[in-house]
């Protein structure tokens, strides 16, 4: 059982929770989080790794309170136990060279650990980050630590600001309309783009087939074969 180290609101409806005592994972992986003993709230909630520190064993999540489960997370206090199953999922595969990261809303959360791993892997590469928020922004200061540029847009899509014709790798996570816009732009420019997808999940390990999607390579499970996919594979799923 993992222990909550901190759990604080960082923006309207947005919380950051740090836990220890769970195995640490990589950027793009997620945990199924659940308050132990809460049979009423039965299923774990998939929440991405926002920051992971193998040294201290701490994992940080940033989550938005949207319903019953995440509202319950927001009531948890440091020292309390939380059931953190994982890390699950494939995670981002780290490519070399210039990288462009595009996040929308709470979809920015998993991209922070990505920026960190890319920076640690190559101190000299260029990393440009574009973040879009409906209202209040968050995490942009944390991205400054790893990125060469951070562009933040409040209200409207940030995608319009991104140049897809660069000789770079693109990574995106955010609401479905944003992912579709990014995929369309990447297709026109023939860019390399990886997307992190989400779907309702029950098991998180690939056993229930609750989260499958149609890909070029047949049916795939977002929790186990994803959540990160090459956009070309999942055009029909977004």
């Amino acid at each position, binding site marked *: 059982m993992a222990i909550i180290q901190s759990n604080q609101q960082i923006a309207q409806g947005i919380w950051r929770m740090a836990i220890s005592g769970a195995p640490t994972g990589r950027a793009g992986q997620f945990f199924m989080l*659940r308050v132990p003993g809460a*049979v*009423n*709230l*039965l*299923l*774990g909630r998939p929440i991405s790794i926002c920051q992971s520190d193998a040294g201290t064993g701490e994992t940080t999540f940033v989550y938005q309170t949207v319903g019953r*489960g995440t509202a319950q997370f927001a009531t948890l206090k440091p020292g309390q136990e939380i*059931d953190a*199953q994982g890390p699950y999922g494939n995670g981002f595969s780290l490519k070399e060279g210039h990288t462009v990261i595009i996040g929308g809303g709470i979809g920015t959360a998993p991209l922070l650990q990505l920026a960190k791993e890319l920076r640690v892997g190559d101190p000299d590469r260029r990393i440009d980050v574009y973040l879009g928020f409906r209202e209040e922004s968050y995490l942009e200061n944390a991205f400054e630590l790893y990125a060469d540029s951070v562009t933040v847009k409040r209200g409207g899509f940030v995608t319009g600001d991104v140049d897809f014709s660069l000789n770079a790798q693109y990574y995106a996570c955010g609401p479905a309309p944003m992912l579709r816009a990014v995929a369309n732009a990447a297709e026109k420019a023939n860019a390399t783009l990886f997307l992190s997808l989400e*779907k*309702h*999940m*029950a*098991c*998180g*390990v*690939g*056993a*229930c*087939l*609750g*989260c*499958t999607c*149609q890909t070029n390579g047949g*049916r795939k499970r977002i929790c*186990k074969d994803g959540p990160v996919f090459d956009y070309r594979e999942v055009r029909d799923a977004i």
Partner: protein
Amino acid sequence: MPSSPLCLSLCGVALQNPVIAASGTFGFGHEYAEILDVSRLGGISGKGLTLHGSAGNKGVRVYETPAGMLNSIGMENPGVQHFVDREAAFMRALGPAVIANLGGHCEEDYLEGTRLLNGADIDILELNISCPNVKAGGMALGMLPDTAADITRKVKAVSRHPVMVKLSPNASELVRVARACQEAGADALSLVNTILGMAIDVKEKCAVFDNIYAGLSGPAILPIALRMVHQVAHAVSIPVVGLGGIASAEDALKFMMAGARAVQIGTMSFANPSAMLEVIDGLAGYCASEGLSNLQEIVGII
């Protein structure tokens, strides 16, 4: 060495304990084998198969409800032949008894599926006439005594494996369906499959599931499932396997006291992947504290 107090025989198949992974909640065992010792289970019922396989339903497929969940997977599966060629041997190597769960859209699909499964090294064929998430066939066959008996008889005539018929809690005359399956030659019965339910997204003013209705499972359905197992177990002489919302050894004991020789656990594995192992340990502890030489002594005491 004396035999374990948890061991039993189900349709002539030796199980090391009465805890079986429920169909559709455990894949074919690969995924959970990565995170827990699945060799300790009594049995594994694989994902429901259909003759030609299926991509399943579109839209939202799983949705939590108070103490339970609704699912509308729609029998996504790789087809019977894929199972025979690629999965059955893997399941056998895991150790627990191998149960193949067979669904279908029409009689001919069931019979051809049964013939193909004759070529696989499995222990029991679980005949699924109770899936609420496929349009034709599926649950329809399990709703009435006559259709349930008819398909059971025909599958029995073809199958070289013992046949356990999985019953639907949505049948209005469940006990008559159970008796009809017994008379048609079923070797065992398992119940319950999911209970037909529904969810509505009030904000979007629409049904959550593309199929509108979906199957309810988990602790929320336990009292209903328990009552049905009790009714059926008292009406038939063939073994009954009970399931529906089991989360603990105590829950498993309730089903056994109500008449189930063995139990299956589904939804609870999602919430807690080690739930089944905890139940096995709890049942062993119960035998020790109650001084039972075999857990089967409590079957049907109520």
